[in-house]
């Protein structure tokens, strides 16, 4: 899913700020803002306004994920509900020693790494085009938004029919036909579909970063004798770094959830399942809640690790850290 990442928490309204700023100078040191009647009413209102959103989000994610952990510790197959029992970590052993899991994990990792890398390059190019093109800026931006907005399943069907022998205009590109029946070409097509769909989002986030590069800085670099490439690497990239990191984080986590394209293009055949696909199959097709939940928990942990690594590596540049926003 796509979200803009602003540390949104750090601003205080001018009205609320004023009375508190007038005080401290008198006594030198900075005091904690005093709690006036207004202030307390403000807090109450703040909590009140946030409560519904917070409740919904927590109820639909926190509780289920805990429940999911509970389910993952049980043998629980809806086809054999009588055999439901607590089995500790046995499900985890089953999953983690299972070849399919690791294949799916490998596929997911491969898709994530390749698509994000390609998207970063293409997205940067697209961002530059959208930002700096001299002609038809509106047209480019509008068409670039279409892949972003279109229903993934629709796009996936389009790709599927394009590569299906007999129907598709692209099927003949491979001499032996039927590219969706072979693992390597299937994966390539899945990645193509993913890249097509999500590059525009990457490009938009990067474009927001590009807009932050001061024109004067580029002019200064030109007068200092920088080539276009040097301007790009030495001036634009450093300024854009936060935008790039945000885009990478979001796209990585998003790519790791790849599901729709695989479902439509190969249905996970020929060992092209992603972890999401595998969990879905165990759950909805196999009705095995125990194993499905175990996979859910494992995916959750993996995503948490990725997010953690990103935030650790890039520190305050990553979203969610709302220091430094207060001007």
């Amino acid at each position, binding site marked *: *899913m796509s*979200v*803009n990442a*602003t540390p*949104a*928490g750090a601003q205080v309204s*001018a009205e*609320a700020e004023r009375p508190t700023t007038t005080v401290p100078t008198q006594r030198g040191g900075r005091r904690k803002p005093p709690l006036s009647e207004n*202030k307390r009413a403000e*807090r109450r209102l*703040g909590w009140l*306004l*946030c409560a519904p*959103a917070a409740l*919904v*989000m927590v109820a*639909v994610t926190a509780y*289920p994920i805990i429940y*999911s952990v509970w*389910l993952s510790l049980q043998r629980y197959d809806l086809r054999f509900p009588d055999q439901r029992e607590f089995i500790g970590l046995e499900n985890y052993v089953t999953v983690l020693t299972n070849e399919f899991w690791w294949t799916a994990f490998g596929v997911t990792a491969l898709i994530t790494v390749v698509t994000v890398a390609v998207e970063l390059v293409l997205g940067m190019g*697209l961002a530059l*085009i959208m930002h700096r093109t001299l002609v*038809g800026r509106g*047209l480019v931006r509008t*068409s*670039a*938004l*279409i892949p972003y*907005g279109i229903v*993934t*399943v*629709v*796009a996936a*069907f*389009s790709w599927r*029919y394009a590569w299906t022998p*007999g129907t598709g*205009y692209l099927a*003949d590109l491979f001499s032996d036909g039927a590219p969706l029946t072979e693992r390597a070409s299937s994966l390539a097509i899945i990645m193509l579909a993913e890249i*097509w769909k999500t590059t525009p989002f990457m490009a938009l*986030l990067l*474009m927001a*970063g590009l*807009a*932050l590069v001061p024109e004067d800085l580029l002019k200064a670099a030109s007068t200092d004798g920088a080539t276009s490439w040097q301007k790009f690497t030495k001036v634009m990239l450093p300024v854009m770094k936060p935008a790039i990191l*945000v885009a990478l984080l*979001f796209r990585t986590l998003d790519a790791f*959830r790849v*599901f*729709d394209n695989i*479902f439509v293009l190969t249905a996970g055949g020929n060992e092209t399942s992603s972890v*999401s696909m595998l969990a*879905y199959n165990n759950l909805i097709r196999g009705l095995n809640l125990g194993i*499905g939940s175990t996979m*859910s*928990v494992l995916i*959750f942990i993996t*995503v948490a690790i990725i997010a953690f690594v990103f935030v650790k590596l890039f520190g305050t540049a990553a979203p*969610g850290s709302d220091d430094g*926003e207060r001007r």
Partner: protein
Amino acid sequence: MAVETTTRAKVRWGLLDVLVVVFALVPVLWIASLSFKTPATLTDGNFIPREWTLDNYRTIFDTDQFVRALINSIGIALIATLIAVVLGAMAAYAISRLDFPGKGLLVGVSLLIAMFPQVSLVSPLFEIERQLKIFDTWPGLILPYITFALPLAIYTLSAFFKQIPWDLEKAAKMDGATQAQAFRRVIAPLAAPGLFTTAILVFIFCWNDFLFAISLTSTERSRTVPAALSFFTGASQFEDPTGAICAAAVVITVPIILFVLFFQRRIVSGLTSGAVKG
């Protein structure tokens, strides 16, 4: 990237533009083309139909399966959007305007949810919804949609709200407005574009979802179009569903194309608003 406006530069940019447009549009045009093909020419692999027909559209609108799914899609997406925008606007107003402890936590939580692997929720929600008897119902889908749309709504809206100069509220009061008048005549008109943009983004998100739609539904009662597409069999068992699938796909693409055409600027600003600041 040189800032030159020579004809050559224009041509170069023009070519790049064309490349982008082709890259973006081909899959869409292809599925549209398939939807207009007759069964006979469906498998000719031609990009442009040799024979045009509207039969596929007639077919899908004649089947309950599609019409029902379309109603589900529209209803569920609209309701989820409405609720998510209202709740999101309340939270975003608080985040951008008020000072209260726990604000950072809320921002953090919604960020976490934005990155949450949805598939991890599928199994517990499947089980919980069955127990609550909301499996395969509208609320069964609306709830997770709201949840995952909320972070998007909160971020976009708080970026918009922060741009509203709140001095205006004071000015309106000084000009003789009551609290309600100040809100209605000054703040609301300024917030409206942000709300609208957010609503479009949230709607696109709900409209797009596939994973929850196939996991938390089992019948036509609540199955949305993306999910229904993968179960499409055509009017009869023996008919190839390709044409029908493509027609249905085009139908659910139309609103997106319209949004993009009319609100390109807004969508871009919504998606990038405050994506990177400071």
